[in-house]
């Protein structure tokens, strides 16, 4: 830890957003944040950055996501990366599609990312390479536990995770009857907080 010569490698957070303000929110006010933000405006560019140099995490402004871009999330999971999202679930995408994605309020993003960055080895690739090689989906990670710990310092409502739906139930139910079925009350609260 603390080897500044390696500071660029594995200390990157990819921000997928057309909104430059989101990059500021991810950075926070601390100029000594333990990670670097790289904002891209296209999901393809996010994928390329992810492939070129594995980041700590990827933050997705859900306004940039279409159903055709869901492989980006799968790609991140295959590499054991944490996927955070801000904004409302776009049309054509279900909460099941976003299973495992952590929905965050903008105001809490920097604290969450800081906790994540501090929980990882300095070279972020170390912890991810085995998963990438085996192609296994990551277990609920120590990163996730750290995020939740960090969130508890700020506000537990700051982060919500889209839980994977039980397969049998998901198949039995007709798809999305009403908006109330798409988001939990806590997720809605996080989104409203995001808008303010």
């Amino acid at each position, binding site marked *: 830890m603390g080897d500044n010569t390696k500071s660029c490698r594995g200390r990157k957070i990819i921000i997928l957003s057309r909104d430059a303000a989101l990059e500021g929110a991810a950075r926070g006010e601390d100029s000594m944040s333990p990670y670097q933000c790289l904002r891209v405006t*296209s999901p*393809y560019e996010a994928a390329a950055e992810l492939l*070129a140099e594995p980041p700590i995490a990827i933050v997705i402004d859900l306004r940039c996501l279409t159903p055709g871009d869901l492989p980006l999330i799968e790609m991140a999971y295959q590499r054991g990366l944490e996927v955070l999202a801000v904004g409302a679930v776009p049309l054509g995408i279900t909460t099941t599609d976003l299973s495992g994605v952590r929905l965050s309020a903008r105001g809490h993003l920097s604290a969450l990312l800081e906790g994540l960055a501090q929980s990882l080895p300095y070279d972020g690739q170390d912890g991810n390479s085995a998963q990438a090689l085996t192609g296994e989906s990551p277990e609920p990670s120590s990163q996730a536990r750290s995020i939740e710990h960090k969130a508890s310092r700020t506000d537990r409502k700051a982060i919500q995770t889209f839980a994977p739906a039980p397969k049998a139930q998901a198949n039995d139910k007709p798809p999305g009857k009403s908006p109330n079925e798409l988001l939990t009350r806590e997720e809605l609260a996080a989104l409203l907080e995001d808008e303010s």
Partner: protein
Amino acid sequence: MTGAGGMLVLAERTVTDEFSDHFGPDSLRAFDDPYEALAAMENRDWASVVIAGSYVGLRGLCRAVRRLQRNARIVVLCGPAAESEVLALVGGASDEGPIDDYFIYPLTAADWRKVTPVDHRDDSNQEE
């Protein structure tokens, strides 16, 4: 990374079949999903990348390909209606102009010669 070589074609099936017929199936790898194509660029340098089709966010896609394939020759095939959009992408590997060239689809015989990757050309075709 292996040495640069081969052609990656990102296009719908009818187009990739044409390329396969023209260059031989062993000379290229074909994809119709952009993310699968990007993944195939992770650990390999391609001599040439051909993108054809009306992909939403073409500029971002081309920039992504350039990010992973700094030295590849990236060409886009487009219809006449999309020419002005694609022309703006030609810049010889800069971020704002990530592609090297474009061709109007369907290709003419002359276009087929120009779109040929460097390692497939004979001496008479090596104009660059």
